[in-house]
């Protein structure tokens, strides 16, 4: 199974560059119709390049999760255009272009950790030997080696979430979509997982779309921070991070970090319309 699609160029449209993974132009999404309709997304324009770590941040109802779900073809936009690897999101989903990590780990309680990670591999028809090899690889990647035989309830919340990330990494998708994956975890576990995620990103060279509520998390992780505002959900500002790719946890005390965090906070405040 050939999964290396990011290097392919869409020859039909000719406008997509080889390095562009996600391209949204004038994207609209309206839920329902008539008086009860809700404009979830309005005029979203965004380009995500290969290797980017993009965070979506904003208050509830700003459409950050909805946009991520549009990329994953779990929602269908009602206007504008959206391409993933030069294809429609639906085609990209059918070619298994992305791994998706939900807010809850959502591991199957009747499967062991190893068997949970095998789930997508079984569905996608990988051979038994290949399954074993990949499970061992990703378990090592999320530092869960030795826990493959455990059932989910035997693991802590943070370990379960790491297992669910391993599950999304097990197959050859260059794009990782994460919807508040650490939202339910405590601060210390969260710091640790953020650090691990950055290492993982550096090692695997994936493109990551990451939804979060937390300003420090967004600034610490991202190369690009998309600040969104609600009613209707739209992009308020896109902030390119000037932080280096190598980021120890204490980078969060540097003036550079604090400056970016301040900009994000200002953006959120302006977009929120509380004044």
């Amino acid at each position, binding site marked *: 199974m050939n999964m290396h699609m990011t290097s392919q160029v869409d020859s039909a449209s000719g406008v997509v560059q080889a390095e562009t993974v996600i391209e949204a132009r004038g994207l609209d999404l309206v839920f329902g119709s008539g008086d009860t309709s809700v404009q979830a997304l309005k005029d979203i324009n965004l380009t995500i390049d290969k290797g980017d770590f993009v965070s979506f941040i904003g208050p509830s109802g700003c459409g950050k999760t909805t946009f991520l779900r549009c990329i994953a073809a779990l929602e269908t936009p009602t206007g504008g255009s959206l391409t993933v690897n030069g294809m429609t999101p639906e085609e990209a989903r059918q070619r298994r272009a992305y791994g*998706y990590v939900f807010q809850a780990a959502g591991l199957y309680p009747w499967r062991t950790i190893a068997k949970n990670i095998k789930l997508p591999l079984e569905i996608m028809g990988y051979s038994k030997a290949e399954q074993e090899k990949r499970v061992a690889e990703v378990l090592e990647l999320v530092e869960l080696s030795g826990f493959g035989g455990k059932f989910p309830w035997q693991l802590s919340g943070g370990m379960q979430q790491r297992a669910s990330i391993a599950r999304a990494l097990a197959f050859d998708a260059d794009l990782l979509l994460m919807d508040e994956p650490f939202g339910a975890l405590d601060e210390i576990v969260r710091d640790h997982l953020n650090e691990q995620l950055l290492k993982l990103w550096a090692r695997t060279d994936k493109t990551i779309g990451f939804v979060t509520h937390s300003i420090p998390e967004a600034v610490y992780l991202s190369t690009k921070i998309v600040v969104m505002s609600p009613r209707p959900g739209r992009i308020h500002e896109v902030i390119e991070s000037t932080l280096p790719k190598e980021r120890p946890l204490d980078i969060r005390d540097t003036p550079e970090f604090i400056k970016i965090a301040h900009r994000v906070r200002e953006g959120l405040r302006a977009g929120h319309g509380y004044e």
Partner: protein
Amino acid sequence: MKSLVAVLTVLAGIIGIWYLACVPMNIKGVLDAAERGGEVVEPAEAQTRRDLSSLALAAQNGFAVTRVWSVERPRLPAPHQVAWELWDTTVMKKVTSKRSLVFHAQVTLSATLLGFAIGTGLGILLAVGIVHSRVMDMSVMPWAIVSQTIPIIALAPMIIVVLYSIGVQGLLPKAIIAAYLSFFPVVVGMVKGLRSPDHMQLDLMKTYHASKGQVFWKLRLPSSMPYLFASLKIAIAASLVGAIVGELPTGAVAGLGARLLAGSYYGQTVQIWSALFAAAILAAALVALLGLLERVLLGRMGVKA
């Protein structure tokens, strides 16, 4: 240990109430028999006794009270009479004898198990169809519900007559009545179980571009197992009731239902009660067996014991 005491206390309470209930239920018969045997009873005329309450009779004829627990054909047999009858017709008789309850229970059990298998298979198939097809949901579910509003006692003779007219008799008609009762809880439980995966779990399968079949085998079916076992326990008990009811209108000579019917023809209350207890014990054993199977299977599926 503490719970064992509580359980035994409740059991002793039930048996105590049962023994007490034998007094008002059987006292008139005992006094009539005593009068025929030449003993003096108060009041002397049968007519007067009929108008008196059972408790008043018991109070006036203290000598007769202990006899209410050893009447040959009592209105309400005492617990030890039923227990002895059960012992006598199971352990003391050869299992091939027509007087052996084991023989009758095995006849009913075979119809129960066949009916349970048919009902469970049908129930699961219907549930799979209902979950995957809106048309089936709207067309089959109402009929499944309506089917359970008809009293089985009214329907059973018709099923037997119709099947007899096309040459089917013996085990199968009883099994079909048992299946008729047992498919419904399986349908309801399995529909609920197959629909139990939440949005997130279904979305996850969608991100893998999983086929409907894969979603069924890897997500819906495993999720439904706890629901299935709850349904199966109801279904097997319903199946046994169906098999017994199926034996009543046929004039069957074998089976717990036949035993109940014969008992009521000849006023053999002890026989009726022992057949009832045999049926209850059989049902409890079947449910317990399913419980054991559930624990083994769900244990393998990683459920905390």
